[in-house]
């Protein structure tokens, strides 16, 4: 199956490490042109260099603080201009979990929710110009099943699933598909589950056993789902929330 990603222009936020970075890597391998960002200029430059090694297309990027609306919109427009349009948008950046104070709610709202909403509003005109496009939001299984604690991360990520569904209805006519991907626990070096594996091995082992497939997922496996949903291979899929969790959650998705 050809995903037809060669020459497609992809914007990914929060893409120098973790899942976002693996998504960028995979798009690059598939021949797409990729624009990345993170807050630190050093990480952006380093990631561009590394991703370019496996890319056929153009790999660009610049530092951007998603919290700052103007800075964010400028980043999107700059990237769109440099690549010559936008076909695919992956609002990936997250403020992460935490129950320290009310501030966690503001942060997840600003970064996870507004970081998606503002991005979507800025890319849709570019997609309209190209006669279509694809957006994949990154949610979490913590949005669809009880997980850890009643924290803002879980609730704000849940908002994205609803938002993606409604967007898919509103922009379908223009050929814009909108989906979300909800990863379960994902292990990678330096990730949250790396810390849990080191500091609380028993809980890690228990979590592994909870998965129908008996292990934690890899960021590459999440990236594959995201890249597929973004591609023409998923041309008839819109408004879905694809749970990518190796059978970690137990609900039936009617």
């Amino acid at each position: 199956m050809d995903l037809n990603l060669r020459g497609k222009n992809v914007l990914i936020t929060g893409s120098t490490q973790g899942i976002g970075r693996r998504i960028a890597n995979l798009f690059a391998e598939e021949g797409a042109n990729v624009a990345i960002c993170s807050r630190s200029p050093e990480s952006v430059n380093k990631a561009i260099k590394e991703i370019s090694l496996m890319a056929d297309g153009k790999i660009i990027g610049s530092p951007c603080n998603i919290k700052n609306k103007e800075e964010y919109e400028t980043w999107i427009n700059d990237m769109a201009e440099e690549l010559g349009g936008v076909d695919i948008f992956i609002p990936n950046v997250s403020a992460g979990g935490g129950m320290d104070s009310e501030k966690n709610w503001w942060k997840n709202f600003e970064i996870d929710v507004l970081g998606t909403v503002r991005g979507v509003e800025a890319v849709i005109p570019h997609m309209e110009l190209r006669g279509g496009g694809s957006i994949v939001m990154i949610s979490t299984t913590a949005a669809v099943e009880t997980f850890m604690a009643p924290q803002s991360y879980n609730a704000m990520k849940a908002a994205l699933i609803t938002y993606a569904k409604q967007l898919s209805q509103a922009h379908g006519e223009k050929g814009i598909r909108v989906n979300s991907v909800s990863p379960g626990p994902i292990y990678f070096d330096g990730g949250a589950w790396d810390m849990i594996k080191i500091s609380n091995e028993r809980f890690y082992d228990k979590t592994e056993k909870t998965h129908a497939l008996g292990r934690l997922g890899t960021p590459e496996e999440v990236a594959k789902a995201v890249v597929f949903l973004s591609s023409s291979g998923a041309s008839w899929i819109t408004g879905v929330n694809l749970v990518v969790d190796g059978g970690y959650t137990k609900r039936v998705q009617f």
Partner: protein
Amino acid sequence: MKVRREQKIARIKKQKGKKGTPVEAMPNPELGHKLIPKLRYTDTGFAQEEWDKMWKKVWLLGCREDDIPNPGDHYVTEIGNESILIVRQKNKTIKAFYNVCAHRGNRIVHALHEPQLESSNFRCRYHSWEYGIDGKFTDIPDLETFPQGAPDCGGLICMPCDSWGSFVWFSMNKDVEPLKDYLGIIPNHLDPYHFDRMVLTRQVTVEWDCNWKASVDAFNESYHVQGIHPQLLYYLDDLDIQIDCYEKHNRYLIAFGVLSPRVVSPSEIPPPIKHVMREAGMDPASYEGSVYNIRADVQKHKRVHGATQGKDYSSLNDDQLTDDYHYTIFPNVTMNVHADDLMLFRQRPHPDNPNKMLFDYFTYELPDNDFDWETYKKPIHKKFKHGETSLGLVINQDAYNLPFVQKGMNSNGYEGLWLGNQELRIRHFHKTLEDYLEK
């Protein structure tokens, strides 16, 4: 993922004022690399020698001054087979006695490890011999039936007793050097923490199935953090540690609120470091800096806000506001010293089994403005067997492991401790012990 990052902890180079805790690193003593024979941990003969030549010669921690504030208040502590009666005198000084009646050897006071309030005299319950709070006989019933008269000792047998740092110390050695000389650098190093301002929050004794030195050792090195306390890799630097050995005692300085070089930084602040921030009154969610700056930022925050929280940090340097200044006072007192609290362990030998010990766990807290004095009640000293109570995750992890260490030491397949540089304090501790045994 296992890593070994290059990391250098920024440490204060100058002590805080003239009376601050000295911070300079001591040159490492030349103590060789010899194996420490396991017999020291398992052999009853060695335990007896240790008792005769060390325990009976040194200064030992008895109780806290505020356990016995008023004349006649008294406290009984045990070491080995001895019971020691510590009594506040009329002139506010403190005396320590063997807790034994000169008549037939009964224990005078039977209550243990619990402050006993004001008493005008002590009466042996066996034949009602009475002693004043100064230890002198006040009444011997039917004295005329003792043709030889009263015992020549004139009352309870007194032993050297003195105070330092809000604690009362005693020695079974009547020729012992003065406490101040014995403690050496300790008062100079630890007075800036003002232990007298701290209040007792928990006191527990647990019988552990290991030699008392196995417990002292476990707290004298951080090499075991990666094995026993992996969660602390997201809390402290277990590699860049300043180890300082002084005459009898030693210390190490461990940076808290940092990542170990053995792990990589997660994208979120690790929960144990968040805890450090919250304790200082900072909101981790509002923190915009890098995880690598948190220790310094917590220090700054406490320096600025300490006074309004009711905490006087004026005699402590900035590192002391976050780090663990960890001291071992020979032979058996381990102190985890922090600006806001003190976690003190006293390791006592079992009276007759070198494979067992008594682990005394005391925590003290520096009260801040929010401290609720109205509901504060001095905790009762509780005693447990191994596994009957929790001492918090970290100590529980050590407590779980130590009986296995002791079992292994008794094996024919084990000869003794093979120590590395990270375990220098253990070697230094054994050197001090050897010095006593050779005397």
